């Protein structure tokens, strides 16, 4: 640790270094945060606490990782914390309730087959234009329509790099319950994106 240049910086030097990071990285961090939480004020706050946290732990910043990589790692932690709180504050319901009390999730008949109106079909070309602006917009719109717990389930999958155990531990739910949430989120996203892209064609 003693070889790190930051330890030798005086306060003014540290401030200048930090200010440079804020200038260079705020834009990317904000875009990243805003595409992962519905409320842009919450996203901005998370970027802010990322920098505050970086400032407080500047001595721990290892020179070999770039500032950008380090800041993004902190932001991901803050995002994961955010969704952990969403779950802890009880906005998530138990697996049993999830299944029964949500009419929008009834993609299936009681026998488990697709409802006629919800059955995916190859004829739909909503998903053909991967990389298109329209599809990307639809995805973002539909992510924002998900209830917080389902949004959290999806975001955690990518924030914690598909480490199932870490995700379940963070959210405080069982594996089965987590997979169920992902499944429901995916069904909702699929239906929402399809209807949105089809409508705006």
């Amino acid at each position: 640790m003693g070889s790190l240049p930051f330890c030798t910086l005086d306060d003014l030097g540290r401030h200048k270094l930090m200010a440079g990071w804020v200038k260079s990285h705020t834009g990317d961090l904000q875009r990243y945060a805003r595409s992962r939480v519905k409320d842009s004020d919450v996203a901005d706050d998370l970027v802010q606490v990322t920098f505050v946290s970086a400032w407080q732990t500047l001595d721990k910043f290892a020179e070999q990782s770039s500032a950008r990589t380090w800041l993004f790692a902190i932001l991901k932690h803050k995002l994961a914390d955010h969704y952990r709180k969403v779950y802890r504050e009880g906005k998530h319901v138990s697996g049993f309730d999830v299944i029964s009390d949500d009419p929008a999730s009834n993609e299936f008949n009681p026998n488990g087959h697709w409802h006629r109106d919800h059955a995916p079909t190859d004829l739909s070309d909503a998903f053909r234009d991967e990389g298109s602006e329209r599809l990307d917009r639809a995805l973002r719109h539909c992510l924002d329509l998900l209830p917080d717990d389902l949004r959290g389930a999806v975001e955690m999958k990518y924030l914690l790099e598909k480490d199932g155990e870490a995700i379940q531990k963070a959210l405080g739910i069982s594996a089965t319950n987590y997979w169920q949430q992902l499944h429901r989120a995916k069904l909702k996203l699929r239906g929402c994106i399809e209807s949105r892209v089809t409508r705006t064609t």
Partner: protein
Amino acid sequence: MALIHSLNVSCDKASALMEEREFRALSGGERVGLWFHMRICDACKAYEKQSQAIDRLLEVRMAKGEDTRALEARILNELQA
């Protein structure tokens, strides 16, 4: 009987297994059941493609650019404090 039972996979179950297989190895029965179901169900075949497209979109997703000057000023202010 076990084989017959394993072949009895609904669309609900099939689409759930598609999520779960990213996190755990499916059992032999589940794999056979899913494979068989996918052979006979066009809706689930379409669903699988679309679901994978959504997964790819989620991996690469990035929001569009926004003006960050106000937030930059706010953060700098916070750090000075």
